[in-house]
């Protein structure tokens, strides 16, 4: 494999601290992570462990206090369309239809080089990918929470990002919708060969989707505690895995990390 592909997203010695009224607050320290191209990574940990902060650093929405972040051999100096972000609360613009929301992203990335028809074509394709063509002219308040999140995913994917960053994308959804979207996400990622970094607090979600699970210690000054390799074959089927001993072993390992090694964080 190409060496760049082995080191697609690099996080080196990153520390992040915020200035608060009580003084300096160190959120993250000594973060080192190397993500391969096409890999699906989840960040898991108790609330307040800085997993969203790490995601925002990769997104370029935050700048590290020290250390370097690199994406495809370029230093991350701010947000950019090469890193598509799916927000927890979908963040669709309520005055635009689903189509227009996605089109806004498409236009920004491809507007200079492609015709109007091509842009509309790309927008439609992104909505087809998440099975939402029938709702493209609806406004966000007219569709369900799961559909909104799918539009958010379509918007991020429509930019053809190098990396897809997802911040607890299914956290606000009910269990059935969540399972359905996880299955869809697996198919989309398989089809697009996307590199994904996803923040979650759901152990099953992490094991089901990930190639590697990055488990974070409790804050303040949180860091990467352990990294678990999820060596389950793909495509994965949630029903088959329900009776798979190896799946349960991996799940147990994450649970042990969260509720034994980092148990105190749960009360914070």
């Amino acid at each position: 494999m190409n060496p760049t592909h082995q080191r697609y997203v690099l996080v080196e010695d990153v520390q992040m601290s915020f200035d608060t009224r009580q003084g300096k607050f160190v959120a993250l320290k000594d973060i080192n992570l190397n993500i391969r191209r096409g890999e699906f990574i989840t960040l898991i940990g108790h609330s307040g462990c800085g997993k969203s902060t790490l995601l925002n650093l990769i997104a370029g929405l935050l700048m590290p206090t020290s250390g370097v972040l690199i994406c495809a051999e370029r230093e991350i100096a701010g947000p950019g369309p090469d890193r598509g972000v799916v927000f927890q609360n979908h963040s669709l613009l309520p005055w635009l239809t689903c189509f227009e929301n996605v089109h806004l992203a498409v236009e920004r990335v491809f507007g200079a080089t492609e015709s109007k028809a091509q842009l509309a074509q790309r927008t439609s394709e992104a909505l087809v990918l998440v099975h939402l063509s029938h709702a493209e002219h609806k406004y966000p308040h007219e569709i369900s929470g799961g559909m909104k999140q799918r539009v958010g995913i379509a918007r991020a994917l429509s930019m053809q990002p190098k990396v897809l960053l997802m911040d607890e994308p299914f956290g606000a959804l009910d269990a059935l919708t969540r399972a359905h979207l996880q299955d869809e996400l697996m198919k989309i990622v398989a089809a697009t060969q996307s590199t994904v970094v996803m923040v979650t607090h759901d152990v099953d979600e992490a094991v089901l989707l990930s190639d590697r699970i990055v488990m974070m210690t409790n804050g303040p000054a949180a860091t990467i505690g352990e990294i678990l390799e999820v060596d389950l074959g793909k495509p994965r089927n949630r029903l088959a895995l329900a009776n798979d001993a190896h799946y349960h072993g991996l799940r147990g390992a994450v649970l042990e990390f969260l509720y034994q090694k980092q148990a105190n964080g749960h009360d914070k």
Partner: protein
Amino acid sequence: MEYKKHFYETLLPPLLGIALFILVWALIADTRDTIPGPIKTWHSATALFSDPFYIKGPNDQGIGWNIWSSLKRVGTGFGLAAVIGIPLGFMIGRFRFLDQMTSPIISMLRPVSPLAWLPIGLLVFKAANPAAIWVIFISSIWPMIINTAMGVRQLPQDYLNVARVLNLSEWKVFTKILFPATLPYMLTGIRLSIGTAWLVIVAAEMLTGGVGIGFWVWDEWNNLNVEHIIIAIFVVGIVGLLLEQMLVMLAKKFSY
């Protein structure tokens, strides 16, 4: 049955309120012969509105012309306030420095009664009509600046993050995010200021004279025509209500 229920729940209470109001009015009018009762006022009103658009010299015109003149003044002063106040509100909301720079001045001038500005208007414009418009301008500009700025400041961080992640240009941020997100706040400002403007025009016209509903009230006071004063109160109230309802309807269209 449905029809009956609708009557008891939505139509009966306001009708009862109005009937009670007229009854109290009639009772008061009965004990004091200087105040005309509802029936006398009604006859006077039908006579007045039978010919609303006559002109018999500059100080004797139909009620329709008086209302129209007042509306024109309010529209002009209010329009000028919108043209200046809304962009200013956007800038104040967007740039913290400008906000802090203007905040003490706005806080100090806002509570001043708009009529206090009338002499300045007369001094500068040397005419009654522009001075009245000037007073309307001053009274309507504050809610527009303050509400627009508040709308810009309350822009959810999520939307700004979307703008940053998509790397949108300043123009796109304005047209696709900032403006639509601020619009409901702006419309609140517009609604508040048209309310104030309509309140103030009566007082301003009493002082400046000419044609207008405020001047008309003053003129009828000098004629001791109390029926007409009471009619004017209703007219001012109803026009104010209509203006407010128009803007409420407009605001409903833009609430997401």
